[in-house]
């Protein structure tokens, strides 16, 4: 929540709702069917090459990638679905990937989707070198032997079908706009193959998309999609309650019960790929002692934090890889809250009292509830936990400095750029010469080797790779490198008359508007 905007938004709240409603009516007068998404944060970058933030919500409706990731649900395993590529094959060594493109697909500017356009688009993203363009780093060459075939040569075996499904930097953009800069895209321009075209973008206010009549897939129901930026949660809630918005998120968890009771609203809650954890500083006493780390993890009130912090909608984290991602370990040996066992472990370790500091993001309610409840449990063990909220940059800088002077526990969320367990395990626990995201400074050569080997196998033998990732993650869990607090739920509040809505956590808070109707 942007507190500095609070006064502004409260002052303008009444006025804002009025104008928003009047504006929707004005557009609706000609009978157009409109989908309105009330988005709690702005869209900082609409360039498909560099966009690496909330703007994915817009990108995913204007542009398309070669493939799309569909998370596993229940018995259904996770899979990668065709999108602009109809099918693909990989050489036995995992180094050559051949994608066969869908035929008859046109860009918004009328040009055909060809292998050459795909090659140029991805090369442009790589050359721009912003945002998440690093996902293409395993690719050493792209060739277009004919109009419908793209061949990628990799320098190391990687799951390119998943990389191509990424929610960032994997968008295929028309060759006619590749000479444009970010300012051009951020003025509300663009040309992709998606079901919607850019119509207008007013930074900090709204982005408006219009139906693409030449779309290759099912014709969209809604004529227009409006992405309204509404930063104040109180105003967000009144918009969805009043019917001025069809879809929103980031309302306080504790208000959801009240919203569920309203028949005109539906609260859609399911697992997200976002997990919350606290990394223990293993380079600093007393957390360099395994027993102390285990005791701390045993003292964490897992169930209470889920019930108070997320109104019971979150789920127990089984390590860092959340459900729905391949490599998730349902049977992971995670600890249960047990203060007696924690006390015994501390006694064994010879630690009678300690002052620990936990850093977390300023203004994050789930993290602060987790800290407060944990602090209360630790106090009974004679451990004083100082809760230090910090702006992300400051929190990160402190952690990247000397580990001996840094925080004891670093709390943050993680979610993957593209869906692979390697993203979580490598960034958070792989040995690092200088700390980047491994902010507990965990280092275990066996673990490093195992996940590197698993990553190399993940393009060709995903079953074996998955087993190796699971085994590697269990090492991290037994070493108590972190406290795995919870997997955050994805909670979206939609109007009940909206049909066809399915949340895909691989694309955080993205709505594929063309799948919806009323």
């Amino acid at each position, binding site marked *: 929540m942007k507190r500095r905007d609070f006064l502004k938004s409260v002052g303008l709240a009444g006025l804002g709702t009025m104008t928003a409603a009047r504006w929707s009516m004005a557009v609706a007068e000609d009978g157009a069917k409109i989908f309105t998404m009330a988005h709690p944060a702005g869209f900082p970058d609409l360039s498909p090459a560099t966009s690496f933030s909330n703007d994915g919500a817009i990108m995913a409706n204007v542009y398309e990638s070669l493939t799309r990731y569909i998370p596993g649900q229940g018995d259904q395993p996770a899979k990668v679905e065709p999108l602009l590529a109809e099918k693909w094959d990989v050489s036995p060594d995992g180094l050559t990937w051949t994608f066969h493109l869908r035929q008859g697909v046109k860009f918004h500017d009328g040009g055909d989707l060809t292998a050459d356009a795909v090659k140029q688009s991805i090369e442009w993203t790589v050359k721009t070198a912003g945002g998440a363009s690093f996902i293409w780093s395993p690719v050493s060459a792209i060739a277009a032997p004919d109009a419908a075939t793209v061949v990628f040569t990799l320098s190391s075996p990687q799951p390119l079908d998943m990389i191509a499904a990424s929610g960032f930097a994997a968008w295929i953009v028309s060759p006619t706009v590749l000479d444009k800069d970010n300012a051009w895209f951020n003025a509300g321009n663009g040309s992709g193959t998606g079901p919607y075209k850019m119509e207008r973008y007013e930074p900090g206010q709204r982005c408006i998309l219009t139906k693409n009549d030449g779309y290759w897939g099912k014709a969209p129901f809604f004529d227009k999609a409006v992405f309204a930026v509404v930063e104040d949660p109180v105003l967000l809630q009144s918009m969805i309650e009043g019917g001025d918005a069809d879809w929103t998120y980031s309302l306080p968890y504790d208000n959801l019960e009240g919203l569920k009771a309203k028949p005109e609203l539906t609260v859609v809650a399911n697992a997200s790929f976002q997990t919350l954890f606290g990394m223990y500083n293993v380079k600093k006493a007393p957390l360099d002692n395994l027993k102390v780390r285990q005791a701390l993890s045993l003292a964490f009130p897992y169930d209470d934090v889920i019930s108070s912090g997320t109104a019971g909608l979150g789920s127990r984290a089984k390590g860092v890889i959340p459900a729905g991602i391949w490599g998730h370990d349902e049977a992971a040996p995670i600890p249960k809250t047990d203060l007696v066992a924690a006390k015994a472990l501390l006694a064994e370790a010879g630690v009678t009292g300690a002052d620990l500091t936990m850093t977390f993001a300023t203004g994050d309610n789930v993290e602060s509830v987790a800290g407060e409840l944990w602090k209360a449990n630790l106090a009974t063990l004679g451990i004083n936990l100082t809760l230090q*909220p910090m702006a992300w940059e400051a929190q990160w800088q402190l952690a990247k400095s000397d580990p001996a002077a840094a925080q004891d526990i670093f709390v943050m969320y993680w979610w993957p750029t593209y869906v692979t367990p390697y993203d979580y395990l490598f960034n958070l626990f792989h040995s690092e010469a200088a700390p980047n995201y491994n902010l507990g400074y965990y280092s275990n050569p066996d673990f490093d080797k195992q996940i590197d080997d698993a990553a190399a196998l993940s393009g060709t033998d995903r079953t074996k790779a998955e087993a190796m990732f699971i085994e590697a993650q269990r090492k991290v869990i037994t070493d108590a490198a972190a406290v795995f607090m919870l997997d955050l739920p994805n909670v979206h509040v939609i109007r009940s008359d909206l049909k066809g809505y399915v949340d895909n956590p691989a694309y955080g808070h993205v709505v594929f508007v063309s799948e919806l109707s009323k």
Partner: protein
Amino acid sequence: MSLVKRLGLPGTLCLCVVVVFALAAMLAPFVAPYAAQGIGTPNISAKFQPPSAAYWLGTDHLGRDMLSRVIYGARVSMTTGVLIVAVSLLIGLPVGLLAGYFGGWADEGFMRITDIFLAFPALLLAVLMAAALGAGMLNCIISVAVTWWPWYARLARAEVLVLRNQPYVEAARLMGVSPPRILLRHILPAALRPLGVQAALDVGPALLTASALSFLGLGVLPPTADWGQMVDAGRPFFPARWWYAVSPGVAIFLLALAFSVLGDALRATGRRDA
């Protein structure tokens, strides 16, 4: 002369309010119905209870009794309010005395420094300071005091400018009394009264500013109870769980108002006596 006659009815009422809050703050462990929750112990089985016989002001998102939290919050708010004014006086008073008495370069120098501080909008400067220093009660006090002391320096200087030409000060000087002694024994006591009234009047705005910093997340850190921070924590739940944001909000309002009216009443008695 009775208290009511001296302070007037509103002044007396407000004095009572201040005394009640002060007593509650001092005796918090004894008067708070759930002292442990006041300090911050969670009680999640009872979260978001509306006001009831067991919880007079309801409970917060961790099930803690709001009344106990408000009472413990009074400790923080009153201490910060009083300390901000005390620290400001401690800096502002000597600066004003010296500038006013010696005049010339000392006066110019000190007054230009106060001008720099007064040129910033007070809350903005406090927010900037607090953001730079980091959260915490001490930093919050420092941040607000930094924006506050120039007013006392100005006020003290104005008093001294009038007093130093008074015949009794003139007389003391002619008798060869040393400047420090004149300042401390002859000018300071006379200047203290208007400054004291101003200080009493300022405790309200000072605690209001401190609460604003807490509201912005720059003040006292949870789980320590603090009114501003509680209003912020309760804000997202406002329409449905009104008691969360309203209880500390009303407490801030009452105490700030009480200090202001009390200050006004004190000033009025000052004028009547003069």
